[in-house]
């Protein structure tokens, strides 16, 4: 029994897990996010699926629109965010699917951390993954569709960060909600896309303004809208996450 840990103990010497603290909750969030990213780095299941899916989406849409250069240019922001949205669905669904295999998600919920920390950890991993995917896909899309970044180029990463964050919040929440359902693959997009429309709309419009398809001054307004919806979704989903994981 030399494995027993140091720290608070009851009268019989059993370990009583210390009271939660903000630092402890943050450590839990980071540990869960690190775990998810490490799993993905090793399995590459989501990386392969999302990169392939995104590339196919970009190419197929380009072929479908034909040789009209102006049409291609105007559709670039929409196609980019559609591809990111579907990649986000795969990412969020898989982040719970891999946990369900050997009861690991059940075990995760048995640790004395707030349910919100579990949500935030998974959200952080999904967001980072989607944001990096967006950073890769944006220049590829702009080149493939003949669009050019405008003068406020620095706002494009901000749009990507806010857009992928809002999307990751909703996707992570609904992925948890549907994780134990048999028809989860079908239900996840059906449930989440109506909710995430404001985020996608804001992201697409802001991107349009930043690649010269709208007045660039409009980008600020769309970004504010995007940030507002992000905040609302973030607070709501974090607050009620415990309801979707308790049976």
């Amino acid at each position, binding site marked *: 029994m030399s494995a027993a840990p140091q720290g608070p103990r009851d009268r019989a010497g059993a370990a*009583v897990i210390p009271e*939660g603290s903000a630092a402890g909750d943050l450590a839990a969030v980071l540990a869960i996010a690190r775990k998810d990213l490490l799993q993905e780095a090793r399995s590459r299941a989501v990386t392969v699926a999302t990169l392939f899916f995104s590339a196919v989406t970009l190419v197929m849409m380009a072929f479908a629109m034909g040789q009209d250069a102006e049409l291609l240019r105007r559709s670039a922001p929409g196609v980019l965010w559609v591809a990111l949205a579907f990649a986000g669905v795969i990412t969020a669904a898989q982040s719970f699917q891999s946990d369900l295999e050997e009861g*690991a998600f059940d075990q995760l919920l048995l640790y004395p951390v707030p349910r919100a920390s579990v949500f935030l950890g998974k959200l952080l991993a999904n967001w980072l993954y989607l944001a990096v995917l967006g950073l890769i896909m944006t220049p590829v899309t702009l080149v493939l569709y003949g669009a050019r970044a405008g003068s406020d180029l620095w706002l494009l990463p901000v749009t990507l960060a806010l857009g992928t964050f809002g999307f990751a919040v909703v996707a992570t929440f609904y992925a948890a909600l549907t994780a134990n359902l048999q028809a989860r693959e079908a239900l996840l997009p059906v449930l989440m896309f109506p909710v995430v429309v404001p985020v996608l709309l804001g992201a697409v419009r802001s991107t349009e303004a930043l690649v010269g398809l709208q007045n660039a001054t409009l980008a600020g307004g769309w970004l504010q809208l995007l940030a507002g919806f992000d905040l609302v979704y973030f607070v709501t989903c974090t607050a009620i996450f415990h309801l979707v994981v308790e049976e």
Partner: protein
Amino acid sequence: MAAFEAVSGAPSDITAERPARQLRGGPGDASAERIPAIELDGVSKRFGREMVLRELRLEMGAGRVAVLRGSNGAGKTTLLRMLATRLRPTRGHGRVFGFDLQRQGDEVRRRVALVSVLGGNYPVLTARENLKLAATLSGLPGNDLDAALARVGLDAAADTLVRTFSSGMKKRLGLARLLLLDPPLWLMDEPYAALDEDGKNLLDEVLTAARGRARTVLMASHELERSARFADAVLELAGGALRRSGS
């Protein structure tokens, strides 16, 4: 109601004096030994139309060991998961060391560990990484990972991905997590399943030590002859009801 009589009526075995209100301070309280480790007060659980657990009443004193028997589907796992706060009772109230299962879940989880049938391990992480995650999420320093792995004979496989483990090795890893966290209440779901003879002997040693150190253990097991050697009482779940079947 008969279950309550049968289980809590006998004062000399797994029962303990019901605590007065002012004694509900948990294990840190000076009079904590008077607080039952487990109290169930008319607890029922329904899944859809099926009532799996009916009006369970149980009072189990701290430091006691009980074996839970019952046929497949009797509700043993459901009861253990409920005590670990993974399932909410449909009706009734349950307490662990005086803390309410529904309203004080975080406090309960600070005092409970569950060794589940599925293992609860992440297949794409190594054994050490799985334990490190458990330590971090439990707010423990994680200095004892190697000792816990050595205790269950997994020291040589510490840096091996769990997906390459046999069922027995996964079970041992779950046992290492239990020893690492070493909480006052151990919930074990078929702990002997998948273990080879050496593994079963190891588990015997762990349970013997747990008894000596006054851990409270509730273990669901079909290996009644073996597990009953460590038990103060054998409880039987049948038809959704709990009754004492021997000691």
